[in-house]
């Protein structure tokens, strides 16, 4: 049996064009031995959920710097659920005000990473949230 790999979708919903953070995370996850599907800029929640479904990912990382996270994140979480992927872990990175973090977590977001968060933390959080894989 081939080794099972953790598959992560890294997506940028919304209209801001800053994808540096998303790319840094994508690269770090790759270097941690994960398979990262990168979708590029300006994805709608519908496009992200569809990609998550087709790629059968274990986790979805959303990079948002536009301030629209309270609109975009719940929509993605809801669509994942509609598609039967409620077990997919969602994490968020970008500029997220502190007071929004608990609300995002209530919606089912695994973790929120602000500027300066370490990629090691992201990796270890994903690994412990997805126990079946190496």
């Amino acid at each position, binding site marked *: 049996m*081939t080794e*099972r*790999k953790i598959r992560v979708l890294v997506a940028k919903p919304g209209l801001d064009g800053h994808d540096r953070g998303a790319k840094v995370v994508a690269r770090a996850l790759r270097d941690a031995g*994960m398979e990262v599907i*990168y979708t*590029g800029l300006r994805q709608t929640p519908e*496009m992200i959920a569809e990609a998550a479904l*087709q790629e*059968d990912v274990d986790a979805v990382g959303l990079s948002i710097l536009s301030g629209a996270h309270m609109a975009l994140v719940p929509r993605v979480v809801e669509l994942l659920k509609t598609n039967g992927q409620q077990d997919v872990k969602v994490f968020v990175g970008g500029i997220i005000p502190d007071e929004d973090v608990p609300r995002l977590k209530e919606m089912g977001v695994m973790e929120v990473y602000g500027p300066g968060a370490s990629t090691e933390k992201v990796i270890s959080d994903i690994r412990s949230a997805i126990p079946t894989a190496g």
Partner: protein
Amino acid sequence: MNLAQSVLNGDRLALARLLSRVENTTPEGLAALDALFPHTGKAHLLGVTGAPGTGKSSLVNQLALHYRKQEKKVAIVAVDPSSPFTGGAVLGDRVRMRDLSGDTGVFIRSMASRGSLGGLAQATAGVVQVFDAAGFDVIIIETVGAGQSEVDIARLAHTTLVVEAPGLGDDIQAIKAGILEIADILVINKADHSGVDATERALKTMLELAHPVRRVFQHHGQAFEVPAHHTIEDNGRLLWIPLIRRTVATEAKGLPELLEAIDLHTAYLRESGDWARREEARLEVEFDLLLREKLVEHFRQQVPDEVVSSLFAETLARRLAPREAIGQLLQRMKS
């Protein structure tokens, strides 16, 4: 309900999950493959390969859009290399395929090449079979043209497109790697760039070498021209002469001509009996591979590991040639 049945019923989540299980060669995935096998053999498998930066993903995007206009269901298997150091991968082909988003008649699956080359070819074959059984009419397999694994994967396809671009110096590289020989259609993408004529000339010259039968055409005064006929008779057998087409995928230019070339090749495959021959060859290879795999498994169960390792030690000490050692092992199995 089991996964195979759900896939046949058109359940997209089941399809996605089964693809993972097939890629990971889990027992459940393999059992589902067996169950789906009678439903396969209908799709047109289209291989698209070429060096990095030639615009394969953009071209695949356009091809899929065109097939969608014909109401065909399209599956795309986009293979990217895994890092040889960490085993991880960044799969970015979807970036160029955003036009296809939101259409349930398209299913894109990114695959990392993972470990072994042979393993990739096997996993891809499995993934393609699942799409085939799920009722996709066209399955596009996109790979980076870099070596043997692409040749193996191209063997899966009914029609193989090799994508080149002007100014990359690729033509010669491709020939060296043997990529050109697998081409049914050569696509010169980015044909709005300078140097496109030189690239086409180089490709034509190489085709002349690869297909000596074309000398007949030179004899009739048609040297250095792509023959008007894309097929020729050779000892009573119809042969395909690879076509060259120019495209600018990002502007959707040259696509009707490329699709026409693909249709011509499809017609040729049916007419010449090559479609059936390719299927036969492919199944024969799979049959053979599985037989070997299972025979080795069976053998290992019958002969204790110590016997194998002691005979190997003899080989290592140069007292027994490998062939002699294997001969003795087989003797043990018989007795």
